[in-house]
């Protein structure tokens, strides 16, 4: 369970949001919305621990996330704006490194399988620099298939994907939520869920406040 209380973040002198509080039970999807520049990415990066909040508490299963440190990182998978793949490495090599960094022991056959499921059969051992934007994103998203982390934090995961891949990713997210996972994401699309609850957080509505709807 992720609990956030009175979170406040600033970028430079600008207040992005303050007094932000919510708690998420397993099996929940939190959909963060807001205009460009309303602090969506900042919120996600703060939740991951990549940024320090200016005020407020964040706890994971009752313990302060910043104090948990590496244990919290084990339970978290962050997928940012940048794909986090090396253009000189092949899809397989990229995922092998990502999985090791995420702390998952994964066999090569599982990685081949994951790339296959992402619709990249035949592209596994090409350097990712020869792939298209959407294909690169698919390679990066294959990480989701390898991870055991209960908390997924996804920043605009749908950009650059084609219709099929969007469907695939929506299914993946729905499955994760159905298996008592937690997903926090920013996107301009709707994510249909088969089970579990979906909650929405609107950033930047009132000045400096986040409102849950």
């Amino acid at each position: 369970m992720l609990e956030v209380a009175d979170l406040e973040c600033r970028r430079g002198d600008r207040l992005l949001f303050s007094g932000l509080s919510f708690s998420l039970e397993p099996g929940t999807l939190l959909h963060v919305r807001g205009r460009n520049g309303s602090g969506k990415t900042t919120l996600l990066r703060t939740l991951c621990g990549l940024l320090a909040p200016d005020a407020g508490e964040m706890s994971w299963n009752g313990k302060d996330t910043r104090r948990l440190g590496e244990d919290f990182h084990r339970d978290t998978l962050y997928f940012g704006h940048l794909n986090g793949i090396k253009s000189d490495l092949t899809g397989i090599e990229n995922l092998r490194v990502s999985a090791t960094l995420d702390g998952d022991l994964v066999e090569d056959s599982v990685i081949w399988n994951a790339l296959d499921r992402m619709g990249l059969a035949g592209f596994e051992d090409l350097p990712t620099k020869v792939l298209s934007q959407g294909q690169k994103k698919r390679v990066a998203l294959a990480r989701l298939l390898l991870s055991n982390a209960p908390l997924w934090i996804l920043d605009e995961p749908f950009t650059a994907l084609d219709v099929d891949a969007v469907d695939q990713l929506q299914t993946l997210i729905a499955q994760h939520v159905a298996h008592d996972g937690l997903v926090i994401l920013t996107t301009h699309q709707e994510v249909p869920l088969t089970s579990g609850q979906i909650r929405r957080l609107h950033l930047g509505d009132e000045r400096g406040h986040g409102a849950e709807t």
Partner: protein
Amino acid sequence: MWRIFFCILGRDIRLAMRRRTDVLTTLFFFVIVVSLFPLGVGTEKQILRILGPGVVWVAALLASMLALERLFAADYEDGTLEQMLMTPQPLSVVVLAKITAHWVLTGLPLVAIAPLMGMQYHLPEASLITMMLSLLVGTPVLSLIGAIGAALTLGLRGGGILLALLILPLYIPVLVYGAGAVTVSALDFADTQPYFSLLGAFLLLALIFSPLAAAAALRISTE
């Protein structure tokens, strides 16, 4: 923990092998800088012998600094650094792996080619061996200390110059004792052991503290 160390080390070396120009740039820079001095100073044997150790060592410092700027910057730009910051293993292990890769790719080739460079300065055989050994112990220290600077200047505009200003003063002790060992080795009653003891002490200290410091600096500069 060792799994992630070798995973990152292997990744960085594989990346460098696919983009060999970066590695060769460092090596050629070293060769050219060292070779320029005899051309400029003249071929007087006595002068070259005095200049040799210092020139080779200064060139090694500068060459090892060339690739430092890219140590974390490339990973920062494509987002892989974020994954490293979010790893459940200690970040300092990942940093140590990256430093080791930097040394294998920039320091080790210098050690291998140094005797050839030393010959241009008419250095005796004993000095050539000492030069190799002192570079072998000294260049890892350069990579280790340099990583702290690379982490601190990550994402800054004009970070390259700032990096040089931050790091070069810290290289001074290594330069003094590294070049000192080579100079002393040419004497009749050469005792280079104190120099190597000091260089070894620097190496141990840097090995323990700099991965921790660089990891902390990375967290600060990515905020």
